[in-house]
């Protein structure tokens, strides 16, 4: 799903535009197929989670780091670092009420993008845990746990404790499996641009690197940085903390267009 989001947000090149009708037909066919197979999906979900439980890290799906419906008129991408205090404030005071309100109502699709900063000792590893959880469908629980307990784990680096407390033992076992070989420190955004890879890379790192590269293209100067796309039109990026009532007012103004 994340890959689809990238596609719709990035500006399309001319050759791609030329191929759009064929792509649209293909997407429509996929949607029709999806609708036809919907009743069978529920029974398959359990089988899929059972497969996840035994899957190797490389066989797991791409991390699902979006909240709400991808077809919402407003898409908000937030580039953040789990160890950054202002990102925590934004999540706790703005994004949480937004998720409960506008995301739940289908007005906004919120996408988390990783932008761990090099100056933060555990931010790369925290991003790995969040992505591992996202690969097994537990991103929301992991992100909440990381921000709620930021002050504690940033002091001792014990991120695993809070991830394990945020989900069932079975789910945590799956997350641990996805984290196989991911020893700290994780990858971060380089101080002079680019991605600073981990000295011990693992299967999750490419997903984090992909987000960092997207951020560098914007460019992201600091975290949190947010980009809002309304009906496919990307608006200029903003950064820093913004309160929910002001953001809500902006969304209402967009939705009234």
């Amino acid at each position, binding site marked *: 799903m994340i890959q689809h989001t990238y596609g719709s947000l990035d500006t399309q090149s001319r050759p791609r535009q030329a191929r759009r009708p064929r792509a649209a037909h293909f997407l429509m066919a996929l949607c029709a197929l999806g609708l036809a197979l919907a009743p069978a999906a529920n029974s398959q979900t359990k089988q899929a989670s059972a497969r996840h439980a035994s899957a190797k890290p490389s066989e797991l799906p791409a991390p699902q780091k979006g909240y709400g419906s991808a077809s919402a008129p407003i898409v908000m991408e937030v580039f953040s670092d789990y160890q950054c205090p202002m990102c925590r404030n934004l999540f706790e005071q703005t994004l949480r009420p937004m998720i409960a309100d506008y995301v739940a109502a289908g007005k906004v699709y919120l996408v988390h993008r990783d932008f761990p900063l090099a100056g933060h000792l555990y931010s790369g590893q925290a991003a790995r845990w969040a992505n591992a959880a996202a690969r097994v469908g537990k991103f929301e629980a992991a992100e909440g746990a990381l921000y709620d307990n930021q002050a504690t784990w940033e002091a001792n680096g014990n991120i695993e404790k809070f991830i394990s407390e945020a989900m069932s033992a079975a789910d945590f076992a799956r997350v641990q499996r996805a984290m196989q070989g991911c020893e700290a420190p994780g990858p971060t955004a380089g101080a002079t641009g680019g991605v600073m890879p981990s000295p011990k890379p693992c299967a999750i790192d490419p997903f984090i690197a992909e987000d960092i590269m997207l951020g560098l293209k914007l460019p992201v*100067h*600091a975290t949190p940085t947010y980009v809002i796309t309304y009906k496919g*039109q*990307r*608006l*200029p*990026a*903003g*950064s*820093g*903390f*913004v*309160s929910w*009532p*002001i*953001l809500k*007012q*902006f969304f*209402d*103004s*967009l939705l*009234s*267009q």
Partner: protein
Amino acid sequence: MNKEARGKVGRILLLVGRLALAVIFLYAAYAKMKPAGTMPWSVASVRTSLAMFALGVDSYNMLPPWAVSPVAYLLPPFELFLGLWLLSGIGLRFSSLVSALLVGGFVGVMVSAYERGLTISCGCFGPGEQVGPRTLIRDGLLFLPLALGVMIGAFVTGRKPSASAASTEIPAAHSAE
């Protein structure tokens, strides 16, 4: 250079400074109010731009939530008004005083944000520009001295009678004696 020539140069400099300041305010207002992306000009799209500017005002973390929107919605139209007022030259002492206070206020707010380590959008000329040394130097060492210079010039020329007016007044004063 005699007094008359100096007075002429001063008046030219004041005119150039006043026009430059007017253009800065007009452009700042335009950049904040222009529709984002490819949205067409309409009341709704200008309102959206102002709502987007409110996000920038809020990110300074200086105003209580209830004050953010009034400031964000009133500031760009006020900049537009101030730009036109400066351009007209009417009541220049007052318009230049208001301009200097406003630019001084902007610089103060930016310095405060920079000191607090906030890496946020400046919002000076629309979205996208970060508060940092570049914007501080531009506003603090270019726009603020310009506004102060126009204000001082306006007060000096406003208080002193012009050279030609003075030359006609003196004989009159003598004749009265």
